[in-house]
C-alpha cells in the first residue's frame, strides 16, 4: 500500500537529485546504508537524515496533513519540518529531517488514514469548505446519543504515529551537572560564548540541537566554513567545554535549573541532564518564518534555509525550476546556492522592493507561482525568505517578556527583564557579521563566567541590534498558518470575528501553535493575523506564552532509571526461602503469610508463633525532658512511667484526629524507646522533631530513629515464654517480667536486645528487638530451638486477624482522616485534665458535643458471612449510618467478626443493624464489644 506518489526509481537506480560533492556536506559518500520507506528499499549515505535521503531519491511528498489530508513536502528541512514526521519502527513522530538514517530503519509515512483506497479528495473538498474553525463546537450537538458515535469516527481520524503494546527495550538515563556556564545553542555565538567563558576559568556545557556545531555557518560559503572550522577547532581544544550535540535544552526552571535532552550517546535512547547552571547563555539563533499565502503548503514550497541545508549539507537538489521570494541577504544567498546546484532560477522576487508571491498553484506539488505583479511562473520550487522568528522560549521561562520590534519584524529579548543569571547572545539579540556576532558573544561569555563567580572585571557587552527587515507575514490570499494543525489564515480571522479576539483565545479555539512544532514556525504569523483582524498592533496583541518544554522529550528520558526505594528486614531472605507471599506495604516488602493464615492464627492461639515486625517504627529518646515530650505527644499521662515499664499511647493531631499509636518503654533513667506504626514511622519522627525544634527548643531531648537498628520479632502464644526462655538470659517468670514491662538482655547469644512484654495479639507475647545484623541469626535460632514446640512463622494477615479478634484498631484502617479520639473508643486513655497535649481542645469539644460516631465490634447474625470491608451500614430509612472497617473470619471463634464505625444512636451493644453487601444483599449484624476474644485479657497476662 503506497499512499505517496514518488518519483523514486528503485533502490539501486541512480539517485536523481543528489549533487556532486559540496564543500560543507555532512554525508559520507564512501558507503551507503539500507533502509525502507513505506516498505520499499532505499539507501542513504551515512550522515543523511531520513528526509535528505528521500529527497535525494526524488521523493517529494512525505506525508498527508493532519486535518485535510493535503500532500506535504519539505518546508524547513530541519528538526521542525512539519511535513517530515515519520513512523520509524515502533517509534512514532520521528523528526525525519533531523533523524539520521540508520541501517535497517523501517520508515513509514504517518497520517495515512483513510488510505488511498478511500476517496481522499472528497474529504479534502468537504474539509476546505466545512471543517473550518469551530466546526466541532457547532455540530454533533443533537441528537445527544449520537455524539459518542461521532466521536468514535473522529478518533479514527487522528493522524499520528502509532505505538505498540510491546515495543523494544530502550535505555534511558539521568545525570546531574553543575556547569558554571551553560550555553544553549552551538552556532557561532554559542561557540564563541563558550570559548570566552571557558578561557575565563568557567566550566562550560555547550548544547547544540543539531548533529554538529556551527549553526548557519554549516551551510554558508567558503568564508563561513573557514570561520566554522576555526571555531570548532578552538572548542575542541578547550578542555573546559563539554560539548553535547544532538542535544537540546528543554526548559529553564527556577534558579537556573535547566533540563537537557541528550541524544548523542551510544546505547542510550535519550538521557535527561539536569543542570544547575551558574549562568545560562541563550544563543539559539533564529528560526526562519514561513510566509502565508494561498497554496503555501504545496510540496515544493520551501524556506530559504531549507534549500540551503539541502544543497550544502546533503548535496540534494531541491527542485528543477525555482522562484525565490527574498527579503533578506540570506534569501539572496539561497539564489546563489540554487544556481550553483543547477536549479534554474526562473525569477527572483525581491520583497524589499515589494515584489512577492500571492499564490502557489499545483495539485500534489507546486506547478506555478503567481506574483503580486500578476505574473504566473511555472516552477516546481518556490523559496521564501521573508523573515525570522527569535525562539525566545528559554528567556520567557526566565521571566523575560520579549518586545516586538516592528522595524525588524521580530520579537527580541528585553534585557531589562532578564534575571542576572541569564544572558542572550547571537542573532536572537541582533544581526551582524560573523565577526561582530562572535565579538558580542565573546563578551557575553566572559560576563557569564564573571556572573558565575569566576571573577574578572565587569564586561562591557557591545551593542547588537536587529537590522531592519520588512514586515512580511501574509500575502492576504489565505493559506496555512499552522501546517501541523492545518489551521488556515481564514480560520484565524474567523475566530476573531466570532469573539475569540485575543491571541490566547484564538490559540485555544483554532489550535494554532498547539502542534508538535510548538509554535516555533507559527506563533508570529498567528499574532500578526490576530493583530490585523482586531486592528491592533502586533506589540499590543502580544504573543502566546512559550511554555516548556522547548523541544519534545521522551517519557523514557524524563523518567530515567526507576528510583523507587524498597526496604527489607534482615530476615527477608529467610521469608523468601520459606514461601512467604510478599506484601508491598509502603516501601517495605513484608511476608503477608506463609500459605495458610488461619493455621498461623491457630498456632499462635494454641502454641507459639513468631512474626517479623521489623518495620514497626522505633525512636530512641534520651534526655531529662522526655516525660514532658511524651505528655505533649500522647493523649494519656506519662509522668509516672517507672523504670522497666511499658505503656500504650495514642497520638492525635491538633484537630483531634487519631494519628498514630504504639507503646513506649522506659529503659533507663533518661532513656526511652518509643514504637510507632510501621506506616507512621517517618511521619511521627518528623512530627516529634517539629514539636521539639519549633515549640520547645529548650527541652533536653535527643531523638534518634532506630527502626532498622533493630530487627523486631514478636513471639506470641501460650508457649512463647518457654521458647524464648531457651534463648535468653532474662528472667521471664511472670513475677520477674510482668505484662507491660521491658527488659534488656541477650537473646541467642546476642547482647543489647530489648524485650517488651506486650500483647497486640492478645496472647502471652514478647516483642524482642535485636541489633539488626543479628536478626536472621536470632530468627533462625527461634525456629530451630522451637521446633519441638511447633513454632510457626506467621505473617501480616494472621496478625491482622489476631488483633481483630482482640479488638485492637489499626490507624488509617479503622480510623480515617476525620476520626477523632473519642470515636476511636480510647475514652479511658484521653486525659482532658492534662495542662496540654496535642489536640486537647478539639477532644474536649468532641466529648462535650457527644455526637460522634463510635468504633464498635460487629458480628453478622449468620457467622458464615464475612461482609467485605467498606460494606455500608444502613439506618432504618436506608441512609448511611456507618461502615465495616475490618472484617475477617475468626479461626478462633469459627465465625465472622468485625469492627465498624457507626453513628452513636446505633452504637449500643446488642443493637441490630442492616449491612448492605457489595453484591446487593442486606444482612443483619449485631453490635458487640470491640474485643471478640478473651475480653478480660487473661491470656496475655499469664
Amino acid at each position, binding site marked *: 500500500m503506497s499512499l505517496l506518489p514518488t518519483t523514486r526509481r528503485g533502490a539501486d537506480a541512480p539517485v536523481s537529485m543528489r549533487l556532486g560533492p559540496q564543500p560543507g556536506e555532512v554525508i559520507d559518500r564512501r558507503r551507503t546504508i539500507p533502509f525502507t520507506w513505506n516498505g520499499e528499499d532505499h539507501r542513504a549515505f551515512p550522515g543523511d537524515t531520513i528526509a535528505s535521503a528521500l529527497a535525494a531519491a526524488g521523493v517529494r511528498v512525505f506525508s498527508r496533513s493532519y486535518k485535510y489530508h493535503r500532500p506535504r513536502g519539505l518546508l524547513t528541512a530541519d528538526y521542525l519540518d512539519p511535513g517530515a514526521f515519520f513512523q520509524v519502527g515502533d517509534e512514532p513522530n520521528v523528526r525525519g529531517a533531523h533523524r539520521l538514517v540508520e541501517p535497517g530503519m523501517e520508515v513509514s509515512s504517518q497520517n495515512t488514514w483513510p488510505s488511498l483506497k478511500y476517496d481522499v479528495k472528497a474529504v479534502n473538498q468537504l474539509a476546505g469548505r466545512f471543517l473550518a474553525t469551530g466546526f466541532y463546537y457547532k455540530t454533533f450537538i443533537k441528537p445527544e446519543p449520537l455524539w459518542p458515535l461521532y466521536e468514535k469516527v473522529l478518533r479514527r481520524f487522528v493522524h499520528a504515529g502509532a505505538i505498540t503494546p510491546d515495543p523494544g527495550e530502550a535505555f534511558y538515563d539521568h545525570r546531574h551537572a553543575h556547569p558554571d556556564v551553560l550555553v544553549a545553542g552551538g552556532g557561532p555565538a554559542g561557540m564563541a560564548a563558550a570559548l570566552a567563558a571557558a578561557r575565563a576559568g568557567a566550566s562550560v556545557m555547550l548544547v547544540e540541537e543539531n548533529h554538529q556545531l556551527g549553526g548557519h555557518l554549516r551551510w554558508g560559503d567558503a568564508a563561513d566554513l573557514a570561520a566554522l572550522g576555526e571555531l570548532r577547532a578552538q572548542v575542541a581544544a578547550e578542555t573546559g567545554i563539554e560539548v553535547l550535540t544532538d542535544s537540546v535544552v528543554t526548559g529553564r526552571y527556577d534558579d537556573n535549573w535547566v533540563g537537557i535532552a541528550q541524544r548523542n550517546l551510544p546505547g542510550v535512547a535519550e538521557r535527561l541532564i539536569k543542570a*544547575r547552571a551558574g549562568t545560562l547563555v541563550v544563543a539559539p539563533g533564529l528560526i526562519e518564518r514561513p510566509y502565508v499565502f494561498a497554496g503555501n503548503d504545496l510540496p515544493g514550497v520551501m524556506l530559504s534555509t531549507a534549500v540551503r541545508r539541502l544543497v550544502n549539507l546533503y548535496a540534494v537538489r531541491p527542485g528543477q525550476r525555482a522562484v525565490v521570494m527574498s527579503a533578506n541577504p540570506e534569501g539572496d544567498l539561497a539564489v546563489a546556492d540554487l544556481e550553483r546546484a543547477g536549479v534554474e532560477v526562473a525569477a527572483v522576487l525581491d520583497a524589499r522592493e515589494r515584489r512577492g508571491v500571492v499564490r502557489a498553484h499545483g495539485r500534489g506539488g507546486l506547478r506555478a507561482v503567481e506574483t503580486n505583479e500578476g505574473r504566473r511562473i511555472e516552477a516546481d520550487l518556490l523559496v521564501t525568505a521573508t523573515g525570522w522568528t527569535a525562539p525566545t522560549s528559554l528567556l520567557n521561562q526566565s521571566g523575560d517578556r520579549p518586545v516586538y520590534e516592528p522595524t525588524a519584524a521580530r520579537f527580541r529579548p528585553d534585557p531589562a527583564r532578564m534575571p542576572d543569571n541569564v544572558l542572550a547572545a547571537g542573532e536572537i539579540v541582533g544581526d551582524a557579521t560573523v565577526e561582530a556576532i562572535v565579538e558580542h558573544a565573546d563578551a557575553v561569555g566572559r560576563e557569564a563566567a564573571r556572573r558565575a563567580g569566576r571573577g574578572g572585571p565587569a564586561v562591557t557587552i557591545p551593542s547588537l541590534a536587529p537590522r531592519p527587515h520588512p514586515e512580511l507575514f501574509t500575502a492576504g490570499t489565505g493559506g496555512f498558518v499552522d501546517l501541523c494543525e492545518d489551521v488556515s489564515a481564514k480560520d484565524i480571522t474567523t475566530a476573531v470575528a466570532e469573539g475569540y479576539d485575543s491571541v490566547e483565545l484564538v490559540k485555544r479555539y483554532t489550535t494554532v501553535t498547539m502542534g508538535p512544532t510548538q509554535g516555533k514556525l507559527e506563533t508570529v504569523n498567528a499574532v500578526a493575523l490576530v493583530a490585523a483582524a482586531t486592528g491592533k498592533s502586533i506589540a499590543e496583541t502580544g504573543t502566546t506564552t512559550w511554555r516548556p518544554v522547548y523541544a519534545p522529550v521522551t517519557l523514557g528520558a524524563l523518567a530515567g532509571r526507576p528510583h523507587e526505594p524498597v526496604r527489607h528486614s534482615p530476615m527477608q531472605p529467610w521469608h523468601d526461602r520459606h514461601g512467604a507471599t510478599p506484601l508491598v506495604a509502603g516501601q517495605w516488602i513484608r511476608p503477608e503469610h506463609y500459605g495458610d493464615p488461619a493455621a498461623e492464627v491457630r498456632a499462635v492461639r494454641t502454641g507459639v508463633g513468631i512474626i517479623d515486625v521489623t518495620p514497626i517504627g522505633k525512636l530512641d529518646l534520651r534526655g531529662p525532658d522526655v516525660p514532658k515530650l511524651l505528655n505533649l505527644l500522647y493523649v494519656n499521662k506519662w509522668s509516672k512511667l517507672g523504670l522497666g515499664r511499658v505503656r500504650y499511647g495514642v497520638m492525635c493531631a491538633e484537630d483531634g484526629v487519631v494519628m498514630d499509636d504504639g507503646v513506649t518503654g522506659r529503659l533507663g533513667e533518661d532513656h526511652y524507646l518509643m514504637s510507632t506504626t510501621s506506616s507512621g514511622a517517618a511521619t511521627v519522627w518528623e512530627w516529634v*522533631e*517539629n514539636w521539639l*525544634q*519549633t*515549640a520547645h527548643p529548650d527541652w533536653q531531648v535527643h531523638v534518634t530513629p532506630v527502626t532498622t537498628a533493630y530487627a523486631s520479632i514478636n513471639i506470641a502464644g501460650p508457649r512463647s515464654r518457654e521458647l524464648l526462655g531457651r534463648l535468653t538470659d532474662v528472667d521471664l517468670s511472670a513475677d520477674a517480667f510482668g505484662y507491660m514491662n521491658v527488659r534488656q538482655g541477650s537473646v541467642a547469644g546476642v547482647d543489647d536486645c530489648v524485650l517488651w512484654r506486650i500483647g497486640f495479639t492478645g496472647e502471652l507475647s514478647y516483642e524482642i528487638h535485636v541489633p539488626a545484623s543479628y536478626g536472621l541469626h536470632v530468627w533462625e535460632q527461634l525456629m530451630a530451638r522451637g521446633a519441638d514446640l511447633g513454632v510457626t512463622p506467621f505473617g501480616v494477615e494472621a496478625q491482622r486477624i489476631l488483633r481483630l479478634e482482640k479488638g485492637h484498631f489499626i490507624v488509617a484502617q479503622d480510623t480515617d482522616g476525620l476520626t477523632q479520639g473519642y470515636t476511636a473508643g480510647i475514652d479511658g486513655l484521653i486525659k482532658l485534665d492534662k495542662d*496540654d*497535649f496535642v489536640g486537647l481542645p*478539639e477532644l474536649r469539644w468532641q466529648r462535650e458535643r457527644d455526637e460522634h460516631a463510635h468504633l464498635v465490634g460487629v458480628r453478622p447474625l449468620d457467622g458464615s458471612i464475612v461482609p467485605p470491608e467498606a460494606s455500608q451500614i444502613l439506618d432504618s430509612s436506608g441512609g448511611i449510618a456507618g461502615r465495616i472497617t475490618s472484617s475477617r473470619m475468626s479461626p478462633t471463634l469459627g465465625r465472622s467478626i468485625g469492627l465498624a464505625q457507626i453513628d452513636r444512636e446505633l452504637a449500643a451493644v446488642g443493637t441490630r443493624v442492616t449491612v448492605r453487601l457489595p453484591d446487593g444483599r442486606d444482612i443483619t449484624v449485631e453490635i458487640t464489644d470491640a474485643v471478640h476474644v478473651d475480653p478480660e485479657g487473661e491470656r496475655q497476662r499469664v
Partner: protein
Amino acid sequence: MMLLPCPWCGPRNATEFRYVGEAGPRPDPASTTPEEWRRYLFMHANPCGPVKETWYHRAGCRRYLAVERDTATNEVRSAVDSATGVAR
C-alpha cells in the same frame, strides 16, 4: 527547581525539603475558644507575596527552618534555624 538556602547545608534543591506551611502562634489549649483554635488550625494568610513559613530539611540537616519566601516568585529571602536562629 527552586533552591532553598539552608542555613546549615547551603543552597539545596527544594525537593530535599518538606514544606510545613505558614508559621503562626499556637493558642493556649487551656483557655482557647473554638473560633481561635480553628483559626489556628484552618485559616491561612495565603498572600501573593512574602510569607513566613516553616520548612523541614528532610534529606539534609533534618532541622526545621523559618523561611521567608515570596509566593509570587518563589524567591527565598531568608532561612534560619527555627530552634537556634542560626543563619548562614
